[in-house]
């Protein structure tokens, strides 16, 4: 039976909200079938990975801590993605931001005072922005594709990190282990709920998302970003400068990724180590898409991804599921989301159409 796609005049609002839920639902179903087929308890696996962290209050603080960097980075990326600026190097900007913050921490390690932490945060944002400025410059001056440059620079950033850890920034008292000294009290991000790991960055992630939502929907700048993405010709006509949009989206993306880096270094890590990058910059791309590039959707998506990480760990201890299972579920969620995405923009029609055009 011929199936064809018919373009909707307006993206479907109901589908826009329904598809992420459909994608997660399909993932759970497929996952259950696959894991049953290869000899695990498939339904228990799905339960552990998608549900158990949500109903266990002990896990909530972990969800917050895990979701915060993903949300902050993804919110930053969503500006660019809306304007068709494909910064996929947030991981590198995250690392460079954290390194800039660490640089401040190491320079002030014998000092104390309430000014140090804010300085680290500013340095972090600048670090991330500086790393994103290279692709911005190349794109606006020379027309170089930012997808490729941001990606390449991520791997360069990783090596910069390794170099600093193995050489100049190595803790002099650390038995030659490649890591920096521990940050001091004035350099650590305070925890907002005593006795937990929930640091200041967690509520700030929410604040940043709300602020981004405000900027995106209530300001001229937000309108500009959305127009450039949706109707480039109209945007040009309205006198919006395309280069300015590129710069703005890369600076927001890089700055927020850098800030997330400092939060992570000064919060959960409390020092800088070569194991610092764990792919948050890449996962944040999934989060941004799953959240429909909407700041509040991104908050939800960040929590969903955090659930799969933490659920993947419980599935290992309770069911003996391998670590790779969580990754497989994450990939499937994104696949299904991208697949169902088509429903937002197109209507599916069955049967031959009058003009005989095939999809």
């Amino acid at each position, binding site marked *: 039976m011929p199936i064809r796609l018919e373009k909707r005049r307006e993206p479907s609002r109901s589908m826009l909200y329904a598809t992420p839920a459909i994608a997660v639902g399909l993932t759970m179903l497929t996952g259950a079938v696959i894991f049953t087929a290869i000899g695990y308890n498939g339904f228990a696996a799905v339960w552990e990975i998608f549900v158990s962290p949500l109903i266990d209050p002990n896990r909530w603080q972990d969800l917050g*801590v895990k979701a915060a960097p993903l949300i902050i980075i993804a919110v930053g990326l969503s500006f660019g993605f809306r304007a068709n600026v494909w910064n996929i190097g947030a991981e590198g900007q995250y690392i460079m931001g954290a390194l800039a913050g660490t640089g401040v921490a190491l320079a002030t390690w014998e000092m104390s005072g309430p000014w140090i932490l804010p300085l680290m945060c500013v340095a972090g944002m600048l670090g991330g922005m500086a790393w994103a400025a290279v692709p911005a410059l190349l794109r606006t001056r020379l027309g170089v594709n930012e997808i490729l440059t941001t990606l390449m620079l991520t791997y360069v950033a990783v090596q910069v990190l*390794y170099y600093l850890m193995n050489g100049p920034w190595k803790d002099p008292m650390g038995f*030659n282990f490649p890591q920096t000294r521990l940050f001091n009290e004035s350099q650590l991000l305070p925890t907002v709920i005593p*006795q937990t*790991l929930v640091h200041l960055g967690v509520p700030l992630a929410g604040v940043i998302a709300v602020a981004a939502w405000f900027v995106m929907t209530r300001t001229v700048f937000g309108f500009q970003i959305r127009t450039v993405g949706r109707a480039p010709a109209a945007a040009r006509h309205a006198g919006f400068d395309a280069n300015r949009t590129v710069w703005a989206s890369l600076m927001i993306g890089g700055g927020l990724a850098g800030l997330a880096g400092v939060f992570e270094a000064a919060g959960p890590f409390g020092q800088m180590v070569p194991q610092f990058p764990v792919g948050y910059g890449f996962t944040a791309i999934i989060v941004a898409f799953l959240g429909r590039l909407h700041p509040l959707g991104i908050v939800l998506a960040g929590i969903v991804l955090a659930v799969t990480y*933490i659920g993947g760990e419980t599935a290992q*201890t309770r069911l003996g599921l*391998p670590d790779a299972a969580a990754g497989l579920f994450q990939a499937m969620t994104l696949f299904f989301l991208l697949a169902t995405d088509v429903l937002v923009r197109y209507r599916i029609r069955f049967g031959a159409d009058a003009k005989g055009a095939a999809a």
Partner: protein
Amino acid sequence: MTEIDRRSLLAALGAAATLATIASPLRAQDGPLKVAFVYIGPVGDFGWTYAHDQGRLMVDEHFGAAVQTTFVENVAEGPDAERIIRQLAQEGNKLIFTTSFGYMNPTVKVAKQFPDVFFEHATGYQRADNLAIYNARFYEGRAVIGTMAAMMSETGTAGYIASFPIPEVVMGINAFTLAAQKVNPEFKTQVVWVSTWYDPAKEADAARALMDQGADMITQHTDSPAALQAAEERGAFAFGQATDMSQFAPKAHLTAIVDNWGPYYVKRVQAVLDGTWEASDTWSGMAQDEVVMSPFRENVPAEVAAAAETIIAETKAGTYHIFTGPIYDQEGTLRVPEGEMMSDADLLSMDWYVQGVAS
């Protein structure tokens, strides 16, 4: 948000309080003793993590239904580790082994929060009332293979593929070289730093480069069997790391330094069951069967095997200690005077190379 988090906090505190009121001995509890392991790599790495997991399986086999073990693999050092260790403690595990140096700070933090759970951290140096540390004297095995390499080498040069210059690795290089020089005072150890624990293709290429430059004995302080395969294809000899790797290189593989954690794990689980567990500092070696040499194969000449067996026997008897003076460093300075033995503390912070090491 705060309400939720306060409740989660109360729940966590409640759980801790319940744990505190359970009276020892633990045998009085219902159900098996729960023991957990945290791994840095996949259990299928055929190296470091694989060896620890073999130890866990030995615990399973030894105690049967009395003990229930679980593990979490691929745990990144840093906040992820802290979360997982805490989660394992919350899930009722009474004894938790964290098997990588980078888990030190996370383990210390969680141990403070769970005074009634016993923790054991491998290769670190921080202890607490409920936190023991353990390590193995792998350098004893390095002395054995150093002896064998010097006896069998025609070029008088060994190639050593090393990861990072931390004391553990430096110690191994030095033990290997010192033992080799007892056989052939001119013996040279050429080190290549590959700056990774695991990259099969690169490890194999490093082995090939070393053989090109005249090494006919290959040994390594990285995790994959790739270097052995490279030695096999060139007709050189090599030594396995962490586990018996002879199936990868039947002709080249002379013996392997096997990490045999099983006996230690069984002993520590028994101590918890008996209520005699203490926060000890254990650095065992061949005498405790924690470091064993895999069976010498037919490619080892009889006199080489005999010499190796002698060293093993003397090490077990405590009469052979490779770090006994005189020991000169690379610059020719006498570091350890005649007849003196290096202390454990000096070994664990070793950052200089003995004469004959080229890196």
